[in-house]
């Protein structure tokens, strides 16, 4: 029972971190049809900025998070303008290569600037230690990750379902050229959602630094995990991504707890099984 409970909490927290990082990828992929392998690199940049701000500048955790989110968005703007613009609508293979190239460059630069060691982001006292739930105590940081994940999911749901921007966004996801013909300025929608996606990735990178440690090869190591979440959930679907994160986080964490010697074997087996049964993802729609 104890084990089941701790597996459930860890899986939930891990799933939520995955969700925060991957949801931006899912939305931009559904919207712009760009296979963006560099998404993990933005999460990594966020982690590095937060670590630098907290450790070298001595800022507080909240300030470090804000700096990480905005700093990453600012870094991403020239990359989007100069590089991503040219691959919208290009064949998949081109997109894969361009974004792998960007990832390699970011890894190389991070390795050069910050060195190959692991970076930590010191937690404020309030997030350290554990909370007593009466029958069981759990780490506060895990709770914090879960709450943040739920808040992001709720906020995105509200923004997409209830606001005017969300209506335009959904219209552009469904049919960009028709939406543009009806007067939706799709380039603004694209720019805003790209910025939000990158900001969320950076936030997730900071939030998940305890579970997914920040180091130069972060971008390559977890790139696959984020892509898997998006394609299992179905690109552009928030509920799909949420379910995918929880299912995959659950499988991965359970596998690590119960059969650590098999590593990620079950994770990838499950991915293959799910995609074979649902080739468009759990919540994917026919195009």
């Amino acid at each position, binding site marked *: 029972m104890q084990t089941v409970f701790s597996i459930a909490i860890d899986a939930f927290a891990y799933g939520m971190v995955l969700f925060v990082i991957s949801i931006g990828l899912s939305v931009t*992929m559904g919207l712009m049809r760009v*296979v963006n392998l560099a998404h993990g690199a933005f999460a990594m940049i966020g982690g590095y900025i937060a670590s630098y701000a907290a450790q070298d500048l001595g800022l507080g955790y909240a300030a470090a998070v804000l700096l990480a989110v905005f700093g990453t968005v600012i870094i991403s703007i020239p990359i989007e303008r100069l*590089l991503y613009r*040219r*691959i919208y609508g290009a064949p*998949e*293979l*081109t997109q*894969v*290569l*361009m974004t*792998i*190239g*960007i*990832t*390699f*460059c*970011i*890894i*190389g*630069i991070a*390795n*050069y600037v910050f060195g190959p060691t692991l970076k930590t982001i010191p937690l404020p006292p309030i997030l350290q230690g554990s909370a007593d739930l009466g029958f069981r105590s759990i780490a506060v940081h895990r709770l914090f990750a879960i709450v943040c994940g739920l808040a992001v999911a709720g906020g995105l749901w509200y923004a997409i379902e209830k606001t005017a921007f969300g209506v335009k966004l959904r219209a552009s996801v469904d049919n960009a050229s028709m939406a543009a013909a009806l007067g939706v300025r799709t380039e603004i929608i694209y720019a805003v959602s790209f910025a939000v996606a990158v900001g969320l990735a950076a936030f997730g990178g900071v939030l998940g630094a305890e579970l997914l440690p920040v180091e130069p090869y972060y971008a390559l190591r977890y790139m*696959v995990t984020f*892509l*898997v979440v*998006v*394609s*299992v959930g179905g*690109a552009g679907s928030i509920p799909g991504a949420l379910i995918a994160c929880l299912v995959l986080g659950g499988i991965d964490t359970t596998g690590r707890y119960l059969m650590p*010697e*098999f*590593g*990620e*074997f079950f994770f*990838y*087996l499950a*991915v*293959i099984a799910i*995609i*074979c049964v649902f*080739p*468009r*993802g759990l919540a994917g729609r026919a195009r």
Partner: protein
Amino acid sequence: MNNETVATNTRQSRTIGRDLIGIGAIIAAAVVGYLLFPDNLALLTRIIAIALLVLSLDLVTGYCGVATLGHAALFGSGAYAAGIAAAHYGITNPLLMTIAGILGGAIAGLICGVIILRAHGLPQLVLSISLIYLFHEFANKASSWTGGSDGLSGISPDLLFGVYEFDLWGQTAYIFGVVLLLTVFVLLRFLVRSPFGMLCRGIKEDPLRIMAMGASPKIALIKMYVISGAVAGVGGALNAISTQVVGLDSLSFTQSAEALVMLVLGGTGSLFGALMGTVVFMLFEDYVSAANPFHWLTMVGVLLIAVVLFAPKGLYGTAAGFIARRLEKRI
């Protein structure tokens, strides 16, 4: 030397002439390589093995339009099949080991093809990535067969035809590799020009139309995947024979991604492009990683971005296009 090759190729209008020149170019490149790097034949042999992997990737990606980041699964299966045949069953004849590699690669190709072809677009890419990780984990766990993370050692191939020894200098391995590459190249030139090769190109352009014409795209693609697996298996077996060890890195995601990078660098949908991309990338990697090991990943990244922006058809495609335009102007 590559530019000369391209120039001579495009001037030939008759395909058989082009084939002969292509074969001549490969032999010339092999001789030049032998003369330039007599002390580094191991690197050249590895380039040949990887070239076979990239050729095999070209068959599914360039000719059939299947985007995959897991093609090293076929290469690694071939390498392990050859290695296991030698280390566990005592089949140390190099030719039999190559055949074991072909079989291993073809079986892996069948498995991967059946699974990867179930989806399209991003899910297809993710399936291929999951498969390569699954193969990697499996090889890691089945350590009594594969040696796990220590690698499979104890492969000692016999003398080739009972005369030539696979020694430390690697001359035999190099020449063996060049002959294998030439054989595969000639066979593939026939294959891609056959009705079956044309069918695959048609599937890449428009699968719906091919179905309307009464052919089954899926069966054709699976056949192509098996052939591709056999080609990659030759490369894997060559690698196992020449290095006498098979490591887990031959089944890695990185290897798959690099193969794709090489293919696109050279140009998809052309056998010459695949060969050229491999040679350029491997020499570049060898040079840069020796000159500055910390920055080579950044350089590869910059190279990739530059290729996508400035030479979207790859080196071979761009060069061939340039020369074709020049020729048109002259006429």
